[in-house]
């Protein structure tokens, strides 16, 4: 495998990124290497079918069912796979639980690793240089930019996803949700609360 060279093939392509994608798609389609209908299927999967509602269901169940919560914290991969949440970029899952003493927050400083089967495609901020660079060094300043201020007594643990392990934060169940069904609880669980940059909030 060639490694470092200074006449990268991509420089031959049009500079406009939309045209650059189109050029590659056209060449690969003409060579019989890409089925355009498969591309539409991939896009539809991540645009409409796999997203944070999967993770929200897991969190709501963990809030409702102590046995499920214990099993999830013990071996999240098999527990969420039983719910049908397994696949690309989610082959190995660890669930980390927020407590009054510890707030968990997830980043990938080296690229943008994210639990796709549970949360879908990562949002722009998760992939941004600012988040990748700063979350590990100044998590509290970053949290403030998301409108989150932690109590002084709460430790922050930032999980840098440097391998194929993907992290799901289980936020603390908010007060005022006693007696709610799992479906109703899931409405409180935001995407950001499962990355650790937000807190659950009442449905709009």
């Amino acid at each position, binding site marked *: *495998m060639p*490694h*470092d060279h200074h006449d*990268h*093939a*991509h420089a*031959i*392509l049009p500079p406009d*990124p939309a045209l*650059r994608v*189109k*050029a*590659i*798609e*056209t*060449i*690969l389609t*003409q*060579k019989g*290497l*890409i*089925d355009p209908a*498969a591309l539409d*299927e*991939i*896009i539809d*999967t*991540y645009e409409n079918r796999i*997203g944070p509602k999967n993770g929200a269901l897991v969190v709501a169940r963990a809030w409702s069912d102590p046995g499920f919560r214990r099993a999830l914290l013990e071996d999240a991969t098999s527990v969420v796979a039983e719910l049908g949440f397994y*696949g*690309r*970029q989610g*082959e*190995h899952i*660890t669930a980390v639980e927020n407590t009054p003493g510890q707030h968990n927050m997830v*980043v990938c*400083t*080296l*690229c*943008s690793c994210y639990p796709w089967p549970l949360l879908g*495609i990562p949002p*722009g*901020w998760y992939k941004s*240089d*600012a988040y*990748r660079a700063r979350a590990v*060094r*100044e998590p509290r*300043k*970053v949290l403030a930019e*998301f409108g989150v201020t932690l109590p*002084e007594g709460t430790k*922050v643990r*930032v*999980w*840098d996803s*440097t*391998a*194929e*392990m993907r992290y799901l934060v289980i936020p603390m169940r908010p007060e005022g949700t006693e007696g709610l069904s799992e479906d109703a609880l899931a409405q409180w669980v935001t995407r950001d609360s499962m990355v650790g940059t937000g807190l659950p909030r009442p449905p709009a």
Partner: protein
Amino acid sequence: MTRVHDMGGRFGDGPVDTAPEPVFKEDWHARALAVTLAAGALGQWSLDTSRHARERLSPADYARFSYFEKWISALADLLEETGVVTRAELASGRADRPSPLAGRALKADKVAGVLAKGGPADRPVNAAPRFQPGDTVRTRRPARNSFVDGGHTRLPAYAAGAVGRVLSCHGAHVLPDANAHGLGEAPEPLYTIVFDAAELWGAPERAGDEVTCDLWESYLRPA
């Protein structure tokens, strides 16, 4: 430093833009993701190799390209390096001939199955892990690939030479440092290591805060 992508702990990037946005901000973002996944399904390179292809964009390109521009540019480089497409084809924007790999093209009715199957990175290995939860370890310094100069590694520079504690062992996982360069999977025990923020940054935001990294056994020594 290893390479430009290794930015954990860097100052100067400014505030995080937290404004809500759709799953794909532009149509071409969605196409870039789908083309990259479909090309990956041809089986000509590993996930580790494709990560390294993005990392070895020049620092100037890495900094000025948006996220999916990095993907698509690294994809063009990989397609050419593996001989799947030629430079002439990239230059003309047209295929010169059909590919012998055409039989491997991902079909629409196989997409759900391929995405659901994923590509687990754990491997069965008989050797016992060298470290146990609670053990104190020191990471390699400087962060580097020990097989290839400037090669792929998953030890961030900010955690190089740092003392941490083993939180858990996840069994043996494919070693990206080897696999990214076609040197085999070389599976090794993978550990979650927790570091005190003061060990990494000197003056942390708050005493007692922590950072974890998932690190392979060869990155670690007893401390």
